[in-house]
């Protein structure tokens, strides 16, 4: 626990508060701030829809750039001689993603495999921030005068929602591109029941369609949020108990973060393969 002056409730809420920048009706463009985390949350609420979580953006974009830089560096210096460890590692990741995409997606589309690789590595990196001890980076930023810093972008529903709705956009785009507007509508309205029940079918299928991005976003968010929550709760305990609990949970969490990144990738590819299928 970095600071003794908080109660445990305040400590938890402080760790779950984003650094938000927005247009407050009274104070103008500012970072939301307040005496307590609850006050800050209230201020964020008053900023309305156009408030932006600066820390989420910073860390997610930063990690995205790190991913691009790392993979580009390896790709440029790739050699057919004995590869270095880093090249071997990157090749393993690429082959793993490639294998999975090939087993699910049977159409011809140059976008899907890079998309799957990006989703997998990017989400994995964002989830990996969960394993950084929860007080280190917020403490440093606190010393620098920034009082809220949530370093795991995937514990923010805005980030996972953004990812999921981008995938949703691609689903719609490829459905229309492959089948045409008519074909897409026909697919939505003429199954599972016979054609007479078209409005009912349409309603059913649209609910099913909208459930895809929502479940995609909430699954990732929920898992990461729960993991973060438990790390925070462990951090409240006396120091001798922290290692005892934090280490097993972190080891288990390595499985969870990889699995969730992998599932997000696989489901994206499955949904896009479904969008490509013409009946």
């Amino acid at each position: 626990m970095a600071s003794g002056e908080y109660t445990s409730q305040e400590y938890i809420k402080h760790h779950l508060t984003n650094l938000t920048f927005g247009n407050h009706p009274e104070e103008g463009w500012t970072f939301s701030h307040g005496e307590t985390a609850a006050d800050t949350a209230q201020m964020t609420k008053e900023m309305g829809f156009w408030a932006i979580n600066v820390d989420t953006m910073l860390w997610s974009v930063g990690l995205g750039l790190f991913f691009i830089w790392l993979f580009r560096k390896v790709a440029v210096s790739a050699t057919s001689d004995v590869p270095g460890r880093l090249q071997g590692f990157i090749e393993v990741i690429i082959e793993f993603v490639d294998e999975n995409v090939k087993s699910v997606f049977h159409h011809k589309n140059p976008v899907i495999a890079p998309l799957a690789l990006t989703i997998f590595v990017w989400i994995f990196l964002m989830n990996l921030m969960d394993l950084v001890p929860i007080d280190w980076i917020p403490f440093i930023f606190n010393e620098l005068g920034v009082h809220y810093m949530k370093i795991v972008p995937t514990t923010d529903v805005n980030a996972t929602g953004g990812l999921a709705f981008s995938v949703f956009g691609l689903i719609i785009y490829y459905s229309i591109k492959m089948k045409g507007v008519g074909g897409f509508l026909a697919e939505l309205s003429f199954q599972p029941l016979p054609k007479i029940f078209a409005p009912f079918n349409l309603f059913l299928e649209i609910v099913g369609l909208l459930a895809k991005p929502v479940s995609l976003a909430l699954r990732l968010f929920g898992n990461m949020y729960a993991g973060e929550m438990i790390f925070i709760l462990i951090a409240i305990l006396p120091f001798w108990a922290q290692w005892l609990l934090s280490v097993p949970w972190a080891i288990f969490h390595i499985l969870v973060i990889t699995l969730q990144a992998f599932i997000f990738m696989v489901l994206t590819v499955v949904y896009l393969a479904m969008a490509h299928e013409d009946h």
Partner: protein
Amino acid sequence: MEYYLLAAALMLGLGAIGAAIGIGILGGKFLEGAARQPELVPLLRTQFFIVMGLVDAIPMIGVGLGMYVLFAL
């Protein structure tokens, strides 16, 4: 009455029941499949982990919300 304690208990407990049954059936079937056709184990393992992640997600969300209700509300 502190109803939020009950709410957290329900969230954690019912989620745990669901996940336990789900992963129990899943693991059993996985072992069954592996015993019948050992050469399919790599394929089955991948699928097993995918479905395990799907089954695991909802109770984990329940744990997160339950912990929030218990300690932070």
